[in-house]
């Protein structure tokens, strides 16, 4: 069986179609990384922050305030934020995405705090956090569990989730291209006449084709996501914020998400769901591939 699988694998991977698809996928994956990580809001802002002398500003702010998420934490984050904002009023403002999104959620809606800070600065005064009535966490509608929510770096994980979605589309296309030839190629080449009269042509060979398509798809899935996670890890802040509650992700704004899950657990869930979907895609592709009369097979 292993020998047959080896040959079935060679029938797929030794073709120009597969190699070409792989090369194009590498290009597309690079494009996804560039757009998803480099030119994301976080990526672009951190580059600019670095130019202004504020290296990894969002990360530092997130790590400085990482921990239990409560009204006190929110107050400390925003106190820090408005102090930095007013200190940098004279020159170019760096962009602290971590604090900015939190401010958008908790600043009162009937006031423009930024204008007030600019006005105060003009009067050579400073707006203090005590002068701002922050919306309490309860009023926002955060889910509550037996343990308190945890906050940490979240923007990097938001980017990862988006990129993971795009990568899955690429994986699906590559798997469909690969899987579509598994049965259809032998039919098109009229090799089935030869293969089906062999001892294993209708038994082990068919099983080997299914295993091969599945294993190859899983391999593509693992490699693609491995590269994605690796790129994420080295491009951003490693695993910072992995244990932050998904409810405290102020990019996604899933404040009332009913399950007590952190970013890493959500990421794993996404991968598991994608894996299940991928197996379904493989199954459907193989089903269509083995139907010689289906017009898609002739593509």
């Amino acid at each position, binding site marked *: 069986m292993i020998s047959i699988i080896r040959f079935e694998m060679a029938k797929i991977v030794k073709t*120009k179609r597969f190699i070409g698809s792989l090369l194009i996928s590498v290009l597309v994956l690079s494009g996804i990384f560039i757009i998803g990580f480099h030119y994301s809001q976080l990526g672009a802002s951190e580059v600019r922050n670095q130019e202004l002398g504020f290296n990894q500003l969002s990360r530092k702010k997130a790590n400085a305030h990482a921990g239990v998420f409560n009204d006190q934490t929110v107050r400390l984050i925003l106190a820090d934020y408005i102090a930095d904002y007013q200190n940098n009023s004279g020159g170019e403002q760096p962009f602290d995405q971590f604090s900015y999104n939190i401010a958008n959620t908790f600043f009162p809606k009937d006031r423009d705090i930024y204008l007030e800070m600019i006005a105060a600065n003009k009067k050579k005064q400073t707006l203090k956090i005590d002068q701002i009535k922050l919306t309490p966490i309860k009023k926002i509608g955060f889910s509550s569990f037996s343990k308190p929510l945890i906050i940490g770096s979240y923007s990097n994980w938001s980017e990862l989730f988006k990129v993971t979605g795009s990568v899955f589309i690429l994986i699906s296309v590559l798997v469909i291209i690969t899987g579509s030839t598994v049965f259809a190629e032998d039919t098109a080449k009229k090799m089935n*006449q030869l293969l089906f009269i062999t001892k294993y*042509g209708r038994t082990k060979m068919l099983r080997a084709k299914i295993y091969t398509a599945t294993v190859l798809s899983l391999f593509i899935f693992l490699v693609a996501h491995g590269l994605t996670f690796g790129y994420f890890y080295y491009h951003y802040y490693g695993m910072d914020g992995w244990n932050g509650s998904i409810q405290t992700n102020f990019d996604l704004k899933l404040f009332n998400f009913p399950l007590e899950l952190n970013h890493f657990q959500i990421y794993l869930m996404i991968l598991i769901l994608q894996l299940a979907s991928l197996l379904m895609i493989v199954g459907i592709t193989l089903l269509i591939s083995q139907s010689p009369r289906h017009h898609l097979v002739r593509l």
Partner: protein
Amino acid sequence: MKLEIKHIQKSYAQTMVLNECSFTLTPGVYGLLGANGAGKSTLFKIICGLTKADSGNIYYNGNAISESQNKFNPILGFLPRKIAFYPEFTGLDFLLYIATLKGIDRQSAKEKCLALLTTVGLIDVQHKKIRKYSGGMQQRLGIAQAMLNDPEILILDEPTVGLDPKERVKFRNLISSFSDEKIVILSTHIVSDVEYIADEILILQKGGIQDSGTPPELVQKIAEQVWECSVPHDLVAKLLATYTISNQKHEKNNVILRIIAEKKPLENAVQVTPTLEDLYLYYFREAVHYD
């Protein structure tokens, strides 16, 4: 060793392809001659278990193969028509793949593959990709894969189509070398391929075996029906519409026609010795006339 085809019937939609087709084969080389659409490939597919007959049965050494196709297949070698090999496989890879599917163990598979590649003259290109093989080389690879399991029955469906005369000669010699103690059935339109190597020729027409015999026996049946005559150019079209013409040879002022007819077609027609090609045209003369 005896292969008996008994009363095989097969239809596709409204078209009857095989109609009470029956014959018996013992060790030797058999040429199956038939026009396009006569049912040659269908018959082969039924023997190989790729298609089921509507009725009738096939027996090998007294056992119905439909009841034990799995036991029958290991003694079968089949080269289908016009298969496209895996272009990125080498010749050796391809044979090893087929050997694995045929259940040959790894050790003996490699030895057999190398031996067969030597026999078919492909040992020097065993590591070359099949896409670089010529048509003749691919056909020889095809026969090598059919021989992997040392079959008792070898079925070759139009194996010489597209080959140049030199490759066809090589191929014929190969088949002759493999035919000891085997039943070899080979279908073809190229009568010269079977003329030299077939022990017996089977004429497949109207769904059944219309005639069979050795090449000399069959040719003898139309001994007095082949004529040659010289005619002016303007008469050719009329004669083409009336008779089966197996050859036209254009000369300066006239055309020499080779005509198949029961009676003398023209005053100056001379009886000539028939060939197997004449026999083919005699049987399949409807296919020769174009509207």
